[in-house]
Structure formats: C-alpha cells, structure tokens
C-alpha cells in the first residue's frame, strides 16, 4: 500500500479531492426508513472508514437502532443508498449482511447459556469431520481454536468448556464481541456493549475494542457514554431526529460538544 492517511484524524473530508485511496468500507447516503407514520430515519449520511472505530451517538429515538438494523439487513431501508467498498448493495436479510462479513453484537448478546463457550463461538459455524449424514462435530478443533480466538484478543475466559451460564457479565460481553470479531471479517457492530457492565468490566471491554482497532477491524460502536466514545473511537457521528447532525473526529471534539450536538444545543454541520 502507498500512503494511507487512515486515522491521522482531524481531516473532515475523507472523500477529498485528490486522494485516489480505497473507497471507505461503508458509505451510507440519504437513508430513509419509516414505520407507518413514524419516520425513524429521515436522510442519514454516514461513512465508515476501514480499520477505524466509528461511534454512533444520539438520544433515544434518534434512529441509532434503526440505522444498525438497516446495516444488518433486519430492516430494508425505504430509500437511500448503502455502498460497501464502493459498490451499492441491498441488504434484504441478516444472512446478506453476514455474507458480507458484517457481524453484530446486540445488547442481548445472542449467546446460548447452557452451551459451552466454544459452542457459542462456533454457533452455526460448527466444524465437522466425516462424510454425508455421518458428519460429526469436530470438538477437538473447535475447542483448541476457541482458545486461540480468545487468547488472541486477550479475553479472560479460563475454561472454554464451561457453559456461558457460569460467566460474568463482562466475560459474556467479551465472548460475544470475540465471536463477532472472529467472524465479522469486514465490520463489527456493537450496540451499547458496556451498558450493563460495572466499571472494571467496562474497562476490559474497552480494552478489547482497542485491540480490535489495533488489529484493523472496522467497528461501529453505538454508545451513550461520551467519555467512552472519546476513549476508544476515532470518529463520532451524531444522529438527531433521524438525520445526521454532525460528524466529528474524536481528537477535535469534547464531551460537552457531543452532548450539545445530541440534544440540539449545538447546531450541527450536518452532512459532513
């Protein structure tokens, strides 16, 4: 690769004139979605640069969840465009998103409590050996590779054979994130990953997000926590009433400004 101005921050126009760089991973423009009379998204523009952590901020009802669901194929948008690596795509179902390597960690985590950690990491992606109807789970490989997956991300789970039921909230969150990061080859979306966690567990999950960024995984982080956004994100987008209110490089903003942008006290320079 030639010079990559990836995350030298402060540059508000990544799609700037001369740079012939790779297209951003995801480019959303003019996205609209209504549920009956309720306009959840009224023209959202958002760009996810590859290898960066992008935070998505907004008050309740600003459209964050709807936007995430449009990106994961749960809700097909009514209008607007989603470009993936420069190509326009249609996400009709969660399977479409998964095929593009987009994985999501919802607040409910999507773990099966009575299955072992390794079974959860490989859920619906089980390794098997044998032929035809006699295909048998390859437990040995899945267990040893689960250990690798977790140790690579420095996730503290002593025993991958233990059931998820035995794990703490932080461990569960970390397992869910590790799973998404392992299979989400292009983009990992996290919906308020630390909302239910204590201080120490939050720190562990934030450290995990930073390690993902170091591994150049692209992350979209939905968060309510300004301090957290400033700690782990590269770029922050603020949604207000279904529209993009602002885009800020994290190095160029403050928690107060972000709060102002969320509430509308600070007028955003929309369509960044």
């Amino acid at each position, binding site marked *: 690769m030639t010079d990559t101005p990836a995350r030298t921050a402060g540059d508000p126009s990544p799609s700037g004139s001369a740079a012939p760089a790779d297209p951003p991973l995801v480019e959303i423009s003019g996205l609209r979605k209504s549920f009956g009379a309720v306009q959840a998204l009224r023209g959202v523009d958002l760009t996810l640069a590859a290898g960066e952590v992008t935070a998505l901020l907004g008050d309740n009802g600003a459209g964050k969840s709807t936007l995430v669901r449009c990106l994961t194929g749960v809700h097909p948008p009514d209008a607007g465009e989603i470009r993936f690596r420069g190509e326009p795509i249609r996400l009709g179902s969660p399977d479409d998103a998964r095929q593009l390597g987009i994985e999501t960690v919802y607040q409910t985590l*999507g*773990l*099966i409590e*009575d*299955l072992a950690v390794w079974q959860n990491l490989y859920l*619906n992606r089980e390794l*098997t050996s044998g032929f035809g109807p006699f295909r048998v789970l390859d437990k040995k490989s899945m267990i040893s590779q689960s250990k690798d997956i977790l140790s690579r991300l420095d996730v503290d789970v002593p025993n991958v054979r*233990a059931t998820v039921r035995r794990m703490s909230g932080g461990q569960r969150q970390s397992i869910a994130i590790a799973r998404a990061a392992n299979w989400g080859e292009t983009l990992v979306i996290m919906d308020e990953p630390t909302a239910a966690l204590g201080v120490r567990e939050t720190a562990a999950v934030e450290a995990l997000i930073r390690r993902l960024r170091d591994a150049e995984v692209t992350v979209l982080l939905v968060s309510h926590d300004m301090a957290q956004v400033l700690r782990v994100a590269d770029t922050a987008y603020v949604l207000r009433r279904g529209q993009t209110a602002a885009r800020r490089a994290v190095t160029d903003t403050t928690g107060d400004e972000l709060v102002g942008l969320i509430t509308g006290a600070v007028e955003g320079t929309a369509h960044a």
Partner: protein
Amino acid sequence: MAEAQAPGLLGGRLSVAAAARFAAPIGLVVVFAVFFIATPDFLTTDNISDLLVSAAILLVLAMGQQMVVTVAGIDLSVGSNLPWAAAVLGYAYTHGWGLAVSVVLALLAALMVGVVNGLLVARLNMTDFIVTLGSLSVVSGFTLLLTSGNTVAVNSGFLRGLAINGIGPVRWFWVLAFLVAVLVGFVLFRTRTGTYLLSTGGNIDAARGAGIHVDRIRLIAYASSGLACGIAAVLFVARTGGADPSLQTDLLLSSIAAVVLGGSSLFGGKASVLGSVAGALLLQSLINGFTLVNISQYYQPVAVGGVVLGAAFISRFQK
C-alpha cells in the same frame, strides 16, 4: 454424553444440586434397594429381563419426548399416537398387507402425526401445549374410527419372536431401545443438528440471530417424537399381540416424567439422554415392583405422579 460440569461452587447447595442432577440414577438405586429388600422375586434374572423389556417401550417414547423437550416443547400427543400407530399396524396386517408393509405404514402414520404437530408449532407458531393436546384428541378419534373401537389381534410369529427372543440373554427389545437411545444421544451431542436443537431450546432468539433455521429444527424434534411413537407401537404390538385402541394413556405421563426425572429442563436447552434412560427404568421398576409385592395397581399412578412431583421439587434447586 452429558456436558462436563464443574463441581458446585456453593458448598451448602452442592448436595441438593447434585441430587437434582442425578435424581434419576439415585432414585433408580433406591427403588432397586427397596424392592430387593421387600421381595426375593425382584432382583432375579428373569424379572430384571422382563422389566427391561417392558421398559424398552417407555424408553423409546421418552427418547422422542427428549427431542421435543430439548427444543423447549412438549408432546402430549404421544398418548394417542402410540395406539394410533398400533391400530394402523393391526389394520394393515389383518387386511393382508404383510408384516413389512404394515410396520412401515405404522411408522409413517406416527411420523405423520409428529410432522403435523411440528408444522403447527413451528410454522404457524401455535402453542405446543395446545397443539399436541388437540392432536391427542384428534388422533385418538382417528384410531377409534379406524378400528370401530375394537381390539385388533396381530398374530405374527416374527413379532412374537421379537418380544421373546434375543441374542443369548440379550433380548431384541433391549437392543432396539439401546439403538434408539444411542441414536438420540449421537444426534444431540455429536452433530450440528444436535447443537441447533439445544440452541433453539436454550434461546430461540439467539439461535435465530445466529442464522439457525429454528422452524426446521423444531419440526425435526416433533417429527422425531412421532417416529419414536411408531417404533414404540411396533414393540407394543409385538409384546401384547394386538392393538387396543383404548390403551395406555399412562405412557404419556411416564414419557414426560422420565425426561424430567433425567434432569432435562422443560424450558429447553438442556438434555440428558442417560438421565432419561435412567428415568424410564426407574418408573418401570416402580410399576414392576408394585406388582411383585402385591400393592394394588391403583396405587401405581399415585406413585408415578408422586415421583414426578418430587423430581419437579428437586429441580427447583438445579442451577
């Protein structure tokens, strides 16, 4: 086959939790000990051999129920599906269609009931309890219509041999029940389908979110239970020499009881094939022992129900 469990963390709860997990094996040992003391006729080769033969039918039913309970469902239609399949077997056989064809028809008839249950529960999202309660009644009506309420005798040397003979001391019934249990254990714990069954029962939203086709998985579970009823019906006809349309509704309760005793959660996601086998043996031993010590058979449902309530009580401590 059961997942490895670390020892309990809370010392005080350890014993109760362990008792809950091993309720069926512990109960089995206790029942054996009690009847061994009560009568010299219990622990004899002949009696145990017969006990295991009668347990085979319940065991096969319990294996089907195990599949449904694993996906957090319940199959109440078992109570009429077995007589239905038995009646189909008897009807076909007495109409001269040959034993092989009759057995296949019986298996298909039972499988069909399971598939219909599965379609209603999984595709139409109807409540499992109501669906199978409804088909319990509908299917018992079909059976009465087919047989006009009469017992159909099935005089087949092959079936009689199946019930009486074996390889040396190993009776064919045990072999069949063993194979069914091994198959269910294999599917549940060694295949992808098994992981999907456990996931669907454990957390259906998470399973769906992971891209598992939960409808198909639930359909597989109910269809398996139907097929198990068919196999059990063949064994039943072999053992009794006929199909009685009004028989054996206590097998319904016993099949659920065996699974609950075995430590599977009725909320799904947790299965123990060995536990369910032990549960089935325990219930059959109770009935067998009661008969031997001449306790009125009217006490049998009381004892079976009591054991089930006891298991439910203990399982409160299971966590």
